């Protein structure tokens, strides 16, 4: 989850955003990442970052990729 939040924050900074509102991740079913665990970990890892309070949407995809595909910020 740390790498996901880092990538979100990096993108948000690039766009000079103050706050991340919503992030969408594509989670490969063979990636080893567990969507429930990610939902649980996200608010903990995001605390104190631009991603704090953001909504996290996870979309299952085939394969082992884990991709940040969409970001909404203000």
């Amino acid at each position: 989850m740390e790498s996901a939040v880092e990538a979100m924050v990096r993108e948000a900074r690039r766009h000079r955003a103050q706050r991340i509102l919503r992030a969408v991740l594509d989670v490969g079913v063979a990636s080893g990442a567990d969507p429930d665990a990610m939902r649980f970990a996200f608010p903990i890892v995001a605390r104190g970052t631009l991603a704090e309070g953001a909504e996290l949407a996870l979309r299952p995809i085939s394969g082992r990729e884990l991709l940040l595909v969409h970001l909404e910020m203000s």
Partner: protein
Amino acid sequence: MTIEYRTADGDAFRVMAPSDTSPGRTAVDLRISLVEENDRAAARLRESFRRRGLVAVNLVSSPGAGKTALLERTLDEFGRQCPCAVVVGDLETDNDARRLRRGPAPVAQITTGSTCHLDATMVERGAASLDLAGVRLLFIENVGNLVCPAAFDLGESCRVVLLSTPEGEDKPLKYPPLFQTASVVVVTKMDLASVLGWNRDAALRNIREVAPQVPVISLSARLGVGLDAWYRLLQSLLAGAPP
């Protein structure tokens, strides 16, 4: 309007440019791979292990399943004939490294802070801090966690998933991704099995359900029972990696 970015590998990807006129809300479509970075570092590690003739073994389990106890005994016994080293990860403290440093094997402790797993760049840093001259077997003791470590390749030749008898029989069903990526499952604390009423058949059935082919070794590091099968496994890994 779209903007094209390039990754370090030169792959192009396009994102929607933010609109300057949006009322305070910016939305961008991206395609940023979160596994790529770790996979590149893991490939570097695997190549450097191969060049050194070094076998890396990644030990993963819940906290308290007995990774450190198994390593203590392994360093004492197997380590006598085979030079070993250890990289051990925990959120805080160097308690495990201190337990493992009683013998001659070099040990690096990585404290990960809030991170719930080791990633390949942490292992690169940990391994770089050790004198690996002559070392044949590098144990990587992962952070105690049955979820996140599944997704992080550490350049290892063998991923050992430990399941201790006090955890019960159904962990493989609850945390299938980790057991599916195991090269071998080691059932630990067998000395407690009878007092716990631990059901060996049920545990094996659950392991087989998520990982039908995976070899299973049962042992007690405390009593030294079943360790010969574990040492035979380590020996066979070394035989497959000439120095």
